[in-house]
């Protein structure tokens, strides 16, 4: 049961590294957003430091959703999806394995890069820890929610915009609680509540995402 799933994770990570697309594009996007914000806001260091955590979250949020549309459609186009359908493991777990690989290739680098970029924004050290931790907890929810959109994109070709419209509202609570936990931690208020909400959203999408994605893929192959 584990070996086929490990094979999927390994293959998708290899493809992400080799193709240079997915992971690199998201990181560059994240970097661009964070670097450009101080120029847009102007030379007001306290203000930049104050909005810094929110900017980091926003950049990671958009970078996570970027590049999700090809998650299943690439396999659909070259016939690999049929191979995945016939693997001796439930399709839900196949979808989860693809989600995990995608998060490792695109989400995790964002989390690792966040404290470094936070320094660029002058975010104070205590806040850096909070924003990194909240990103670590929140970005898997974005990936696994995006999994559903990516599967629907296979069922409905040329639906890129539709998928974005469909998943964005569902992703907003993750952003709200992620930023909420960070702001509370910086202000020295109780951060546990929003942090736990972000965590519960992640656990929710970790279960719901693969199940919904598998349902969409089953519908797509008819």
């Amino acid at each position, binding site marked *: 049961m584990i070996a086929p799933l490990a094979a999927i994770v390994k293959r998708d990570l290899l493809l992400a590294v080799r193709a240079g697309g997915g992971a690199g594009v998201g990181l560059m996007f994240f970097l661009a957003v964070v670097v450009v914000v101080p120029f847009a806001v102007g030379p007001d260091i306290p203000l930049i430091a104050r909005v810094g955590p929110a900017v980091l979250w926003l950049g990671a949020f958009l970078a996570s959703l970027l590049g999700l549309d090809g998650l299943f459609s690439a396999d659909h186009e070259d016939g690999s999806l049929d*191979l995945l359908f016939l*693997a001796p493991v439930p399709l839900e777990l196949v979808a989860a394995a693809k989600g995990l690989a995608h998060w490792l290739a695109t989400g995790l680098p964002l989390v690792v890069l966040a404290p470094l970029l936070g320094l660029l924004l002058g975010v104070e050290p205590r806040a850096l820890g909070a924003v990194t931790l909240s990103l670590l907890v929140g970005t898997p929810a974005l990936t696994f929610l995006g999994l559903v959109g990516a599967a629907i994109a296979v069922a409905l070709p040329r639906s890129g915009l539709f998928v974005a419209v469909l998943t964005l509202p569902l992703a907003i609570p993750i952003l709200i609680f992620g930023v909420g936990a960070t702001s509370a931690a910086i202000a020295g208020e109780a951060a546990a509540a929003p942090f736990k909400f972000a965590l519960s959203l992640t656990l929710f999408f970790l279960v719901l995402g693969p199940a919904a994605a598998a349902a969409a893929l089953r519908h797509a192959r008819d």
Partner: protein
Amino acid sequence: MRLNIEGLACRRGERVLFDGLSFAAEAGDAVVVTGPNGAGKTSLIRLIAGLTPPQAGAVVVDGAPLARESLHLIGHLDAVKGALTVKENLAFSRALLGGRIAGETALEALGLAALSELPARVLSAGQKRRLALARLLVAERPLWLLDEPTASLDADGQARLAAIVAAHRAKNGIVVAATHAALDFPGAREVRLGGAPA
């Protein structure tokens, strides 16, 4: 094993591709599905593989529904990732399908051994087809479902395909192939799908 196709029906939109299609195959048999473009050959192969539900009828193996663990499907797409090497592509299929046979043996049988370290994107269409067919050999499956297996294959490739199919049948395997080309499968039964082209 005994494969029974019992009264299968397939509809694509408003059009009935086939209805009441029945045939059987015993261990060691080969079935060649022929018919004009749009007759439903690919649909039939995907239907037998369980990728699409039939409108009516059933696919039965030894009295039970066909399990995906007992079949190989080589579709009309090669399912080859250009960014991975030939060896990596095959190793993935092998791990995914839970195969126990070394990839080198399979590459040898399809004449790809010398190319195993190359990225698959530099392969020609025929070489990609050979790589797809090599999947048949890395995991033991009694039923092989092949959709246009000889597409883009040269004479040597076709001979190698005929050889691995013969070896599979000698081990009591069953092969169902949809094709336009004449396949060198001795004693194969032909199932002709009539449907008028759209």
